[in-house]
């Protein structure tokens, strides 16, 4: 498909302007079964962004319902379907596959490889996502509607007729997406282990690559538990088995263990790559090396390991025996240690740096600070006695959304802006990026902060109507969510407009380290003319002698 002669990477900086025009991926390719990891990466990111918009729309209907105590916007089965599909779509069709897409694009570039280890497997894994997602959405057409048991699908509610038809579709869809994830896991781990460029030792890999390694190991290790649990659930519905039916001697609590054995680590599958994104962006815009690189890399692995032994903290109020509640309280508290290492390392990186507050940096700083808040409420939730009060209340919903929106989705936006020039070869409009940041930052806090006081006062999650005493904070959260919904509009306009007609980007507009910045923007089909040889530590922002073309900073 490609035959253009390209200059070596050393000269790529200067030759950017004249080279990428001959080389661009045509738009048709994005709709094809391409095996180019960069095309697949973009396919993932654009597809999942559409699911993000759908999931967001569902959330806004939910918030519309909750603006008043009474039930007036949707009927109850529909409300239950809305929050079930909102959660499922955002987790399994937005954050997890978006991260896979970003990693697909970046990991081979960052380690100096020409592609992923198994390009065809990579394409198959992607092409399972759209049918899986459409299958899930198709359940809206059923007479008994979509799955309505929440994204946890705890039995026995999930087994109950008639909405168990939607549940069957939900399970099939998740199994398809799950198999896609396992394929991705195999591919990423193999790629990172075997396809690194000469000189790219493990401790020269960017933290983003470490975080993908850790999160994909989690996928391989933990996802089978969920897949197994879901298949047993499916058999209970369709084949008359009694694995989880208490009336027939089954054990619904076993499902909770199987579910959380994956779904707690899933939070780390979602958040670790974003910690990786922060660890790339904060040094680049502080002009400092990442402080304590080695300990951040090890903390990434440590987080993955600890996250496999904390799942029962989701079940503190379930029939979990006291010893288990306490044991899991200790392990959950320990999560704070490696997380703290990262948070401290970012702070020390920014400290006395030379800060450029461009859009990616704003999103990364905002995300890091919001994660601090989420981490603190997380430690609170690890405390068994306190959790028994707020378990299943909006306090948990607030905490969770500070992770998945205020940290992860902010981090995703940071990543999109940061690597947009690399991926598209064009620059976005900085002013609109900043507007997007402030709308998002304010909207997200307005939406999710009020959930904490609501939860402390005992408002339970998943209620479709509530006592009038809770209304005040709910109105704030709902208005915030409408602002948050609107905040994606400048983003979409900026990204679409800039992709089509933005000014051409430099190969390395941020003067960042990392192999992906040494090749052209967008990179050629084979990524590098010649596979680079790595001789430097990562985040080499301490080369004082060098003055890098200051005129190239046109975006500020």
């Amino acid at each position: 498909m490609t035959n253009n002669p390209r200059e070596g990477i050393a000269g790529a900086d200067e030759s950017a302007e004249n080279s990428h025009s001959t080389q661009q991926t045509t738009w048709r390719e994005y709709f094809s079964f391409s095996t180019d990891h960069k095309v697949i990466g973009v396919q993932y990111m654009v597809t999942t962004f559409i699911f993000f918009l759908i999931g967001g729309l569902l959330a806004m209907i939910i918030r519309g319902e909750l603006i008043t105590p009474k039930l007036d916007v949707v009927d109850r089965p529909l409300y239950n379907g809305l929050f079930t599909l909102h959660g499922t779509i955002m987790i399994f069709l937005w954050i997890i596959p978006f991260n896979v897409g970003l990693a697909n694009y970046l990991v081979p570039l960052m380690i100096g490889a020409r592609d992923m280890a198994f390009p065809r497997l990579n394409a198959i894994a992607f092409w399972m996502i759209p049918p899986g997602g459409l299958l899930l959405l198709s359940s809206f057409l059923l007479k008994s509607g979509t799955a309505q048991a929440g994204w946890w699908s705890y039995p026995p509610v999930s087994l109950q007729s008639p909405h168990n038809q939607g549940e069957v579709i939900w399970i099939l869809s998740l199994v398809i997406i799950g198999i896609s994830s396992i394929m991705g896991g195999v591919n990423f781990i193999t790629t990172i282990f075997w396809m690194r460029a000469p000189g790219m030792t493990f401790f020269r890999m960017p933290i983003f690559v470490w975080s993908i390694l850790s999160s994909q190991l989690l996928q391989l290790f933990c996802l089978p538990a969920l897949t197994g649990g879901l298949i047993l659930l499916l058999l209970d519905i369709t084949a008359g088995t009694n694995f989880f039916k208490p009336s027939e001697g089954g054990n619904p609590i076993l499902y909770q263990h199987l579910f959380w054995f994956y779904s707690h680590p899933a939070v780390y599958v979602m958040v670790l790559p974003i910690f990786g994104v922060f660890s790339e962006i904060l040094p680049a815009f502080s002009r400092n090396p990442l402080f304590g690189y080695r300990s951040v890399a090890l903390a990434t692995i440590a987080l993955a390991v600890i996250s496999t032994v904390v799942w029962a903290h989701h079940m503190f109020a379930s029939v979990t025996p006291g010893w288990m509640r306490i044991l899991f309280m200790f392990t959950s508290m320990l999560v704070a240690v490696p997380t703290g290492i990262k948070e401290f390392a970012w702070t020390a990186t920014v400290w006395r740096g030379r800060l450029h507050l461009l859009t990616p940096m704003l999103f990364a700083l905002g995300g890091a600070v919001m994660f601090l808040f989420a981490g603190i409420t997380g430690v609170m939730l690890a405390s068994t006695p306190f959790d028994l009060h707020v378990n299943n209340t909006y306090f948990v919903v607030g905490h969770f959304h500070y992770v998945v929106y205020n940290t992860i989705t902010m981090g995703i936006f940071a990543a999109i802006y940061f690597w947009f020039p690399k991926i598209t070869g064009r620059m976005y409009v900085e002013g609109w990026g900043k507007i997007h940041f402030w709308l998002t930052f304010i909207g997200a806090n307005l939406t999710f902060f009020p959930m904490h006081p609501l939860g402390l006062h005992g408002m339970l999650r998943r209620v479709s109507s509530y006592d009038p005493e809770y209304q005040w904070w709910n109105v704030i959260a709902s208005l915030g969510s409408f602002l948050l919904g609107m905040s994606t509009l400048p983003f979409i306009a900026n990204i679409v407009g800039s992709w089509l007609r933005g000014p051409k980007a430099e190969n390395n507009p941020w003067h960042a380290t990392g192999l992906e910045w040494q090749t052209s923007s967008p990179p050629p089909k084979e990524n590098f003319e010649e596979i680079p040889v790595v001789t430097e530590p990562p985040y080499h922002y301490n080369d004082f002698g060098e003055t890098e073309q200051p005129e190239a900073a046109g975006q500020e």
Partner: protein
Amino acid sequence: MRKILNSLLLAAFIAVILLISRWVGQQAYSWMPAQGTAEAKQVDEIFSFLASIGTFVFLGITGVIVYSIITCRAPKGDWSHGHPARGSVKVEILWIVLPTILVLWLSFKNLSIYQQLNIQGLPPVVMHMHMVESADAATVSNDSKPVGEGIDVFAKQWAWSFRYPGNVTSTELHLPVNQPVSLALHAQDVLHGFYVPEFRLKQDMVPGRTITLTLTPERVGQYRLHDSQFSGTYFALMEANVYVESRQAYSQWLAQAASREPTIASNQAVTEYTQATKKIFNSRWQTVQPAEPSVVNYSS
């Protein structure tokens, strides 16, 4: 001179965030519902404590970041590098060891509070080898708490009912004040959860298992019992009134309830199921039929 000034500024910063953290810790009590039980006080104490530590950490780190944002901006287009520091073993060990000590300390503090809550029915924490043997909650109650009243709590889709000594039944929960009560929790169809925000403690209910929750109401008043584990279509309607009253008022009520003939209690879920009102978006999805309304001596 500059060094002294810096240290002074740092000391002042720490002093200020310490004060704010202390204040937040005091405020934290007012962010909770009223303390309806003896157990609530302990939960609120741990929350206040966590809130003040959390505030200190949050303001400390955010303060450093904000300080950097304000004072360390690079001029436009100047991409020269900042400081060359790649790490510092001393600092890194410090920020590994300190949080570890902090969270271990928090865990032990929580453990002791959890022990005092002394939740019956679930096996207590025994810090030696026989942890697993009594994992089945059922009726284990090798406990020191003297229990006064024993009340059965029944949950079904989507209504609560209660059974008192003497086989008196009702749809409201009446509890005598200042006396430990033992609630035997029964779920009849799907998972439910027993939760009165003012009581703090929350416990899931599982069909086929009886779980005992013991608590001591300490404040006379009217509260709301909520279902805290998602139980299906009319989940939000599954609430009941809770009355904590003097021993005398409780006995009077019990006698009055016992004298009434059992009747069919009104049931919001059944009402909604049979006479659905129009919403803006109506899915008209078929749904699970609510259980038969309870037949009780006393219903509101």
